[in-house]
């Protein structure tokens, strides 16, 4: 394997990509260690899918360099394809083939020995037994996703690139999916996974938050929260009162984020002092109770998006 492969499975610097005049990715640098589960977060259209496609050789970057599994992402994309499992955002197996036929096709395409045997083994290993003769198009969301993951790992890749793998999947299937991911990581497979779910983000070893084609923050979830220095409050009271406050809270000094969390209103902002004064005023004028709360990962991302967007700082 080529240089750099020992330390980082993904090591890219300054990736850029435009479609027409639209700059989708503007200088993305990523380093992912072996066996790591790396979460890739960001709103829709922020450049997650484009970055992942550049990593597996489906798109040619306009600028930047880098290696995936030690192979150059521009010149050696074919070698990367052989060693990467890529799970697309939308189900992309053949709806009119059965579970086993789909897996056998993938096995053959990757030139695996004894493809039929391998497909059957994978069916058992991934808990698809009993559904091998069902048409892939007739599977429910959770099973489709499991089949897609099976097709990704069939050829024993060293790196998995999963693009929003759990979108539209029920909580139980999501949990089982993440258990599988952790098992694979324990076997030494590196996983880069993009997601919108905060609970999933917290299951990753490391995160990168991308917005408008730039990475705004990176590191373990906890570090990202603490480095934003956000303060948060929980406001409880009668629903009509809370709804009224929610409508105008954003104009109050020190308030940046206002969101309902079940029975209470979650209010968050970067300036602790100003926010505290606002909260005390609120409690004295309205019949609500205010108490300090913990800022969430979601708060951090929204804050990053608000302050770092556009042409803001890129890390």
């Amino acid at each position, binding site marked *: 394997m080529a240089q750099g492969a020992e330390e980082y499975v993904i090591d890219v610097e300054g990736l850029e990509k435009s479609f027409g005049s639209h700059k989708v990715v503007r200088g993305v640098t990523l380093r992912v260690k072996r066996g790591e589960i790396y979460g890739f977060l960001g709103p829709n259209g922020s450049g997650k899918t484009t970055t992942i496609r550049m990593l597996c050789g489906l*798109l040619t970057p306009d600028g930047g360099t880098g290696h995936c599994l030690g192979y150059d992402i521009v010149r050696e994309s074919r070698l990367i394809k*052989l060693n990467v499992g890529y799970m697309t955002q939308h189900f992309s197996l053949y709806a009119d083939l059965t579970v086993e036929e789909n897996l056998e096709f993938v096995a053959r*395409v990757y030139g695996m020995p004894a493809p039929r045997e391998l497909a059957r083994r994978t069916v058992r290993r991934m808990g698809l037994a009993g559904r091998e003769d069902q048409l892939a198009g007739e599977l429910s969301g959770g099973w489709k996703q499991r089949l897609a993951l099976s097709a990704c790992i069939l050829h024993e890749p060293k790196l998995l690139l999963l693009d929003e793998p759990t979108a539209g999947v029920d909580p139980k299937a999501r949990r089982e999916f993440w258990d599988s991911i952790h098992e694979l990581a324990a076997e030494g497979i590196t996983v880069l996974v993009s997601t919108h779910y905060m609970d999933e983000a917290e299951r990753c070893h490391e995160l990168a938050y991308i917005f408008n084609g730039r990475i705004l923050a990176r590191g373990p979830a906890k570090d990202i929260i603490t480095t934003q220095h956000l303060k948060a409050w929980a406001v409880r009271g009668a629903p009509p009162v809370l709804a009224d406050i929610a409508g105008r809270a954003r104009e109050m000094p020190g308030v940046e984020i206002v969101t309902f969390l079940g029975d209470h209103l979650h209010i968050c902002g970067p300036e602790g002092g100003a926010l505290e004064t606002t909260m005390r005023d609120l409690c004295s004028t309205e019949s609500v109770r205010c108490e300090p709360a913990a800022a969430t990962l979601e708060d951090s991302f929204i804050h990053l998006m608000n302050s770092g967007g556009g042409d803001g700082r890129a890390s």
Partner: protein
Amino acid sequence: MAGRPDIPKHARPYRGFTRRLWAMIMKEFIQLRRDRLTLAMIVIIPFMELMLFGYAINMNPKHLPIAILSADNSDITRDFVASLKQTGYFDIRQEARTEKQADALIRSGRVLFVLQIPPGFGRDIRRGARPQILLVTDATDPVATGGAIAAVNGLAGRLFLRQLRGPHADLAGRPPPFELVVQKRYNPAAITAINIVPGLIGVILTMTMLIFTSLAVTRELERGTMESLLATPLRPSEIMLGKIAPYVLVGFVQMAIIMAAGRFLFGVPLTGSAGLLLTLTMIFIAANLSLGYTISTIARNQLQAVQMSFFFFLPSILMSGFMFPFQGMPAWARFIGEMLPLTHYLRIVRGIMLKGAEWPDLVQEGFALVAFMITVMVIAVLRFRQTLD
């Protein structure tokens, strides 16, 4: 009813029919306006058909190619040939020297008629010996030649009035001074099926090969499966060949069905070499598949692919000589027709099945198909990218 809120006026189920209908109509027009290809087809197809049926298609074709095999060089013969030209039905393409040469010309389809004038034709006319002349016609397409034969027959009475003056004046007028023998080759009974069945092989192959393959890539793109395919080690050429190969087999199965049915139901023969027919059919299939593949790399979805295939298929049927006599079309329409692979394949398949044509007769058509295939294949491979850029 108690507890039931008043239904707002605009939501009453049987009111506002026109408003809702109007909303639907507006939406359809907006979508139609955005769909450039459909819009173009709405305008271009009627125009194209109008041009074809109005100007190009001719059920009483004139200027048909004829070869003259003359063994007589008298003034009467020259005059006869000139009158033949004057009817407007014939274009004299060639003076054949030998009978063999004349046969090759008609077998290859380069001429539709050979006129054989016997030695001493002029002398025999003057003697009142009523010499015979032989008009060999390619009767595979009875429509194409019918009018021309009638025109030659009509000539007989009006000819040679100038030469047959004076002492020969009694020979002019009835009965005609010569006897016209018409020899209808290849389809003497003028059975339309004989002409249609081999042509149908070409038409059906064009249709299936074009539509199947033009859908091949767009289907993968539309369903999102192309992204996974491209993420695998498959190469573009492997994807292309893998998509095309099954349909080659499909094409031969279709051909076998039509040929078998043609033989047993309509008695359409296979006069020439089956091996040659299969080889040239293979090239024809490959040409159509490559074209379909090229279309599928251009079209953005399956609907566009079908529209584009149709756009090619329509002139193929009308201008190739399948439905209407090729020679009857004006030069510009024949020029377009020569660009279509079906035109060349029709000559090949009719030539081999009905006339027993051999490779030397079909060299031109064979090379035209190969040239078309290579051009389109190059475009297809260049158009297909391994990445999603």
